[in-house]
């Protein structure tokens, strides 16, 4: 165990030790757990919580619970989030292996502008030092997905501009139970998923494992798999300790996950897409992502009569090596240098035709300029910290105060070691030239962060008024690790205070209106020079919420005024980013506004059959307010009024089903508007749009009671194939029609 972990767990042990001491002195007997106890603890791992009453938080909140998740058995977070208003997505590989998720108009690239939490803990590989979420938890093992946007975002840093996505893993229940879920589908898709929970008095143990794999739906020119193989195993040990004054929960969570996927950044020209959308060029044949993720988390929960304290210590290690085509060998001459995006955007123009023939294997590499660079971007991350959150309720005068406060010490680091090898295309096969492997990037970025927040919600008759702030104190360090660049380093300290205020007015027990105002912030990564400004915005929202059992309505209008919109250049953005990987850019003022609407209800078709339905709609407008020229491929030469890329103006989802006691069937119809692939002029994808598209997913299940459940699923029933984006390089298809058959047995 390294020094960092030792210090981390020392702090954690101190915190837990103090509270154990308090509790033990008061303890007289241990009583069996109750469901309520479990619920309190679980609610602290959630953002919104499992409310069965009107939620009075002044922000847009969506919870997709286990029942809803099981309706479609989706493995792709993109498809799950189609049910959430105000979410903008850029799909990439069709399986959602590396999601691109944005909320309320922030660009979705690698989900780096939202907070991604698992059980309330930052789960990105290095959320401060390298926020691009190349690791994303396997959603198939989640029991709840929450999306929260609005002023309460200040509780969940560092990114407070857009919102927070929290996923809840399976909790150790009081009952001894288990499940086996086996599924098989198109393109040799298979899923093996199971868990078992056993309780030994107050000690509960959970073990859960899942394996997903597929041969992939694309076809390589040179033959071979285009699929993936993912594994995930989680173990939890939970100990409940009840006392007279305090109840406590101790929980240890251990996790391991890995992925091997034959993924590439290389897409197709539009012409080739029209002919064969699932084709993959010969030059992508060596693409392979290989990662491992390890997780240790220790939680302590202490609950008194009117307060509770949750303390969490966590450590996540992530290693990834992605081998893929980066580019052609630089010709050193700007006149003949082309990015892969340039080539695929105009494959017959000038010398692009030569490069295109090599990419597709129609032509052998002859000159040096026709050599292909295959890079391995090897990165090692860790993310660790200790976080304590206090919830306190008391009355002062006639006002009830609900205090939420917390402190977190967090460290994360990315160590990059990127290499490149030269290959010739020979008869459609990539053959190494034998040249020495070049080290293209070797550096380390590290952040050490103290975060505190305080929020007080005052209950005044029908009003709930909330005042709060969050502060982030970030010390970051960048070091170039290449030999001879020892003096290429930067140390930065950033302190920021993020206030937020909101109000909720209860019209009656079932409905209310709310308003909120908060400051949005996204930090710069450690290697960005101080001239690169933080992303800074003022966010306003107004909303209405109605809750009456199954009938739930939420209508939220939002407006975000960005003082500075920033974006970073990653390989996933464009091949021209390789020489300036992770360089960040300022865009200055931008405005985003929109509307999020959702309405869910159910009615009875007969005594035996119910019809649950849900409709969500999002309208988003995001425009730059300044005119500027940028080298960043997503922007280019931008004029004030140009739209921010990858934001559909309209999105609509209808989820409707038929439910009986032993069977159910569900249909999800979603529409995503076209999106522009670049904001301004003079970049490869200027003026190019993705396709607007409709998607239909259908599922059905029959419950054989004691003998388990059989389920059927069809994704993309209409078999519509559209260009979902032209990034990283070239047009990429949506997932084709897929069928799955599964069997699930619970005990």
């Amino acid at each position, binding site marked *: 165990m390294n020094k960092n972990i030792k210090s981390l767990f020392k702090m954690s042990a101190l915190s837990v030790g103090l509270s154990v001491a308090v509790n033990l002195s008061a303890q007289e007997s241990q009583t069996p757990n109750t469901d309520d106890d479990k619920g309190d603890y679980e609610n602290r791992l959630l953002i919104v919580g499992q409310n069965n009453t009107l939620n009075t938080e002044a922000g847009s909140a969506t919870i997709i619970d286990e029942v809803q998740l099981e309706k479609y058995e989706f493995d792709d977070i993109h498809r799950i989030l189609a049910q959430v208003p105000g979410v903008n997505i850029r799909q990439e590989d069709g399986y959602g292996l590396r999601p691109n998720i944005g909320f309320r108009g922030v660009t979705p690239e690698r989900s780096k502008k939202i907070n991604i939490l698992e059980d309330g803990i930052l789960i990105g590989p290095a959320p401060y030092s390298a926020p691009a979420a190349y690791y994303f938890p396997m959603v198939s093992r989640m029991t709840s997905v929450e999306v929260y946007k609005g002023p309460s975002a200040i509780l969940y840093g560092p990114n407070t501009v857009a919102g927070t996505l929290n996923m809840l893993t399976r909790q150790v229940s009081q009952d001894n139970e288990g499940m086996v879920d086996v599924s098989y589908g198109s393109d040799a898709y298979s899923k093996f998923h199971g868990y078992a929970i056993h309780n030994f008095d107050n000690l509960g143990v959970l073990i859960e494992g899942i394996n997903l794999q597929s041969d992939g739906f694309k076809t390589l020119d040179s033959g071979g798999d285009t699929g993936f193989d993912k594994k995930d195993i989680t173990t939890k040990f939970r100990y409940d300790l009840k006392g007279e004054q305090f109840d406590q929960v101790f929980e240890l969570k251990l996790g391991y996950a890995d992925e091997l996927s034959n993924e590439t950044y290389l897409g197709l020209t539009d012409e080739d897409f029209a002919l064969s959308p699932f084709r993959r060029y010969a030059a992508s044949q060596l693409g392979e992502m290989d990662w491992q993720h390890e997780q240790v988390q220790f939680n302590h929960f202490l609950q008194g009569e009117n307060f509770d304290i949750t303390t969490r210590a966590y450590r996540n290690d992530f290693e990834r090596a992605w081998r893929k085509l980066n580019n052609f060998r630089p*010709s*050193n*001459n*700007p*006149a*003949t*240098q082309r990015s892969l995006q*340039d080539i695929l955007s105009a494959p017959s*123009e*000038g*010398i*692009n*035709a*030569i490069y295109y023939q090599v990419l597709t294997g129609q032509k*052998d590499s002859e*000159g*040096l*300029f026709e050599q292909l660079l295959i890079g391995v971007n090897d990165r090692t991350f860790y993310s660790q910290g200790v976080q304590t959150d206090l919830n306190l309720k008391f009355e*002062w*005068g*006639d*006002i009830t*105060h609900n205090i939420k406060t917390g402190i977190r010490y967090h460290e994360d680091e990315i160590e990059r070691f990127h290499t490149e090898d*030269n290959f010739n295309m020979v008869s459609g096969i990539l053959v190494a*030239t*034998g*040249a*020495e492997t070049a080290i293209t990037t070797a550096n380390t970025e590290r952040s050490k962060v103290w975060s505190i927040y*305080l929020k*007080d919600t*005052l209950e*005044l008759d029908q009003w709930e*008024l909330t*005042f*709060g*702030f969050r*502060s982030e104190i970030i010390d970051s360090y*960048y070091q*170039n690790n290449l030999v001879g660049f*020892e*003096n*290429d*380093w*930067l*140390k*930065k*300290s*950033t*302190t*920021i*205070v993020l*206030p*937020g*205020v909101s109000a909720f007015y209860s019209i009656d027990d079932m409905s209310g209106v709310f308003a909120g105002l908060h400051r949005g912030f996204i930090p710069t990564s450690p290697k960005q*020079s*101080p*001239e690169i400004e*933080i992303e800074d915005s003022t966010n306003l929202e107004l909303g209405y919420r109605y809750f009456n059992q199954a009938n739930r309505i939420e209508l939220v209008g939002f407006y975000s005024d960005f003082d500075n919109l920033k974006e970073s250049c990653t390989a996933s953005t464009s091949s021209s980013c390789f*020489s*300036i990987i992770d360089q960040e850019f300022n865009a200055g003022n931008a405005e985003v506004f929109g509307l999020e609407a959702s309405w869910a209800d159910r009615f009875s078709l007969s005594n035996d059959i119910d019809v649950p339905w849900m409709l969500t709609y999002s309208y988003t407008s995001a425009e730059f307010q300044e005119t500027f020229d940028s080298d960043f491929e997503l922007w280019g030469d931008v004029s004030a009024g140009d739209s921010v890329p990858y934001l559909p103006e309209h999105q609509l989802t209808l989820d409707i089903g038929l439910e009986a006691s032993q069977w159910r069937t569900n249909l999800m119809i979603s529409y995503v508007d076209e999106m522009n692939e670049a904001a301004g002029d003079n970049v490869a994808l200027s003026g190019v749009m993705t396709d607007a598209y409709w998607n239909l997913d259908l599922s059905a299940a029959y419950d054989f009671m004691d003998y388990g459940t059989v389920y059927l699923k069809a994704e993309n029933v209409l078999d519509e194939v559209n260009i979902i984006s032209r990034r990283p390089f070239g047009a990429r298809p949506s997932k084709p029609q897929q069928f799955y058959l599964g069997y699930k047995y619970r005990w």
Partner: protein
Amino acid sequence: MNYRASISSLAAAMTIALSTIGCSDSTSSTAGSQFNDNANNNGTPSQFDEGKLVTNLTNNILTPAFEEFDQLASQLNQSVITYCQSEIGFTTGSIDANQRDSDRTQARDDWKAAMSSWQKVEMMQIGPLIENQSSLRNKIYSWPVANTCAVDQDVTFFNAGNINGTPYNVANRVVTRRGLDALEYLLFNDNLEHSCTATTAPAGWDNLSERQRVEQRCQFAVELTDDLRNNVDDFLAAWSGDSGYAQSLLNASAQPGSDFENIHEAVNRISDAIFYLDTVTKDSKLAIPLGLFENDCQQNACPENLESQFANHSLENIRSNLIAIRAVFTGNSDQSNDNTGFDDYLIEEGAEATATNISNAIDNAINNIDAYQVTLNDALVNSTNNVQATHDQIKAITDQMKTDFITQLALQLPASSAGDND
């Protein structure tokens, strides 16, 4: 309700929250000496008359260089026509070998003259030459993207008059099959075998007689010089006239009709062009053949990777690059008494030493090249150290350009030179 308590409670909460708004954010940093070595400069106000610099360089350096190449391209066109007629006459017996050889030598000399002139233009790529992904530049000269087999194939296509039934039109052909690099192969390569593999060999070439091969090559060379003239005409049309790019440069000092936001941006575009010396002259023309970067010879000295290897014109090309950068840097020409150049700009900014150092480094590099007694090909094989010395002399120029020059004049380094290949 106890309103006093309520109000004080509310006030306390508001104080906690809102007092934080008053707190100012802060950022501080310390950096190592190598951090952001290539950071962009956003420009600082200058007293130097940048308009005068742009005017002199446009009127007296760039435009004359382009017009000179236009004239030499026409001359090349004529001499290749003459040479080809001689080859045909030689076949029929109406022209003797001496006349044919003389005409061929003239065509080759005119190619060399045109290439030397073009190598100056290479250092001045701006406006129409870099628009549309350098389409015009690549049509005129596409090195290092060159392919002799592609030229061999088009000799056959041109002779047949069609490609799979579609009438042959050189204007639609990929740039590796046209331009000065293709002409060099046709005019200087005495090997009449094609340079393709068995699968890509030009149809029927092996069945042709030597005379047929020579004639087909020279006839295609004529077609390419016609194409060259057309492309140069297109370039000059886009450069000249009231709406040409030259006028836009001249108007950059705030007059309407300019593509530039300000005169400094126009200066920066010219500065971008001369960084050709760094990535192309130094790296592609010298470092790769020397084996300092990966090449076709396992990073050993590699004549196969030299520019203009059929004409053995590599050294002259580099010399022309240096002559051109000296003209742009000093502003000196025989066209005018105005000699406002980048050196004057540096002096005005108090960087006289930098001006002198760069000027001396350019002269030293030219002197180094003039001292060669053999071709670059031979030197690379027999006296690699001399070639390394030439590389180092040029690096002495580019090192200062990438640091002091950029910094003192508040210019932005072109992206192609931002990465340090050294």
